[in-house]
């Protein structure tokens, strides 16, 4: 498992598709400090003089309340407050609503090397966005060997030994108007307690290696509609060479699970043999998974129908 790191300077740069609308006003020296958690602190109580349980090592959020409080106190009092406030090893301060901190605040922060930033967002909105960014970075990640495709809206992770035909299967699925997310290396992120998000490695994104052809660029060949950047994994399909001594599921009544990062994902094993059309089986598996999600379980329903029918037969025998 990889451990990602987040530094304050990262907040000022690219933060994915979320725009924090943030800029630095002071404390450039401290930009390389590391953010270690997603918790934030409103320093209102500390500014008013109550320093018990002061969480100085978190991001300090100055909302309208804090700015208004600081605006109405005398310069003398302010000096005292700032002296005490900055005696802690603060991580960084963010002013919301586009409110600028006063000169004194900026100069002390500059001296101490505490980054001070201003965002145009409202406080609650900013906290929500920042939490989202931080949690995404800190969420557990694992990279797996496999191919991730989107089939009928279901994220299907194909796993299996090298050379079993995962990439060929993905190519055929793309040809049938499904989408490629990642080939070979799938970076899986646990976004939530039940959600696994899969994406490809940045460098080789949307390329497929097909034995005999070499590397092809799926986005260039099939267009932007044939690929996507990330997708939730909802089904895991293990492709393996047909082993005649092994028993393969014939009913599909019991649901099997595959565990990735402590999350159980529905799992099927599909044996591969020449002449067997694997992509169409994957399509059916994905459709069946969608049906199950909507509460319809084909195998169980057939079983229930057979049992009903048998019961009615018994009655007519009496």
């Amino acid at each position, binding site marked *: 498992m990889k451990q990602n790191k987040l530094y304050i300077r990262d907040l000022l740069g690219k933060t994915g598709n979320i725009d924090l609308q943030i800029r630095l006003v002071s404390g450039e020296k401290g930009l390389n400090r590391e953010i270690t958690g997603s918790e934030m602190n409103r320093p209102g109580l500390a500014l008013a003089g109550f320093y018990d349980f002061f969480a100085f090592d978190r991001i300090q959020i100055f909302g309208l309340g804090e700015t208004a409080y600081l605006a109405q106190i005398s310069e003398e009092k302010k000096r005292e407050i700032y002296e005490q406030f900055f005696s802690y090893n603060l991580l960084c301060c963010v002013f919301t609503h586009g409110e600028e901190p006063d000169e004194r605040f900026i100069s002390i922060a500059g001296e101490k090397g505490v980054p001070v930033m201003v965002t145009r967002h409202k406080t609650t909105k900013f906290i929500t966005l920042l939490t989202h960014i931080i949690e995404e970075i800190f969420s557990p990640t694992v990279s797996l060997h496999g191919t991730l495709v989107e089939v009928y809206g279901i994220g299907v992770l194909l796993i299996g030994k090298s050379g079993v035909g995962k990439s060929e299967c993905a190519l055929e699925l793309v040809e049938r108007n499904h989408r490629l997310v990642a080939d*070979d*290396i799938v970076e899986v992120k646990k976004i939530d307690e039940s959600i696994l998000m899969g994406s490809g490695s940045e460098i080789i994104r949307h390329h497929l290696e097909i034995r005999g052809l070499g590397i092809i660029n799926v986005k260039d060949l099939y267009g932007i509609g044939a690929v996507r950047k990330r997708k939730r994994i909802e089904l895991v399909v293990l492709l393996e060479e047909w082993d005649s001594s092994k028993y393969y599921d014939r009913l599909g009544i019991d649901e099997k699970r595959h565990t990735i990062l402590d999350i159980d994902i529905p799992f099927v094993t599909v044996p591969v043999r020449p002449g067997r059309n694997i992509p169409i089986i994957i399509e059916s598996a994905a459709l069946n998974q969608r049906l199950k999600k909507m509460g319809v379980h084909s195998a169980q329903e057939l079983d229930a129908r057979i049992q009903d029918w048998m019961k009615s037969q018994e009655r007519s025998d009496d």
Partner: protein
Amino acid sequence: MTERKITITSDAGIHARPAMMLVKEAMKYPCEIFLIKEHVEANGKSIMSVLALAITKGSSLIIRAAGEKEQEAVNSLVGLIQKEF
């Protein structure tokens, strides 16, 4: 399981062609082979996997093999990297 740690000295790093040579060599062995760079594991028998590691000059790389003929696999891969790139 056998492991060896090496540092890449070639200026060009392991780009497409060297990666292909590496994978070709790895394919000769029945064991599982992994290349590990900064905690990221790549399947040594998959070209895309090796390319995605973006192994540059100065990268330190762990070559790990597990299974049949693991010792020979690691030795030959390390030999190849030291000789060719």
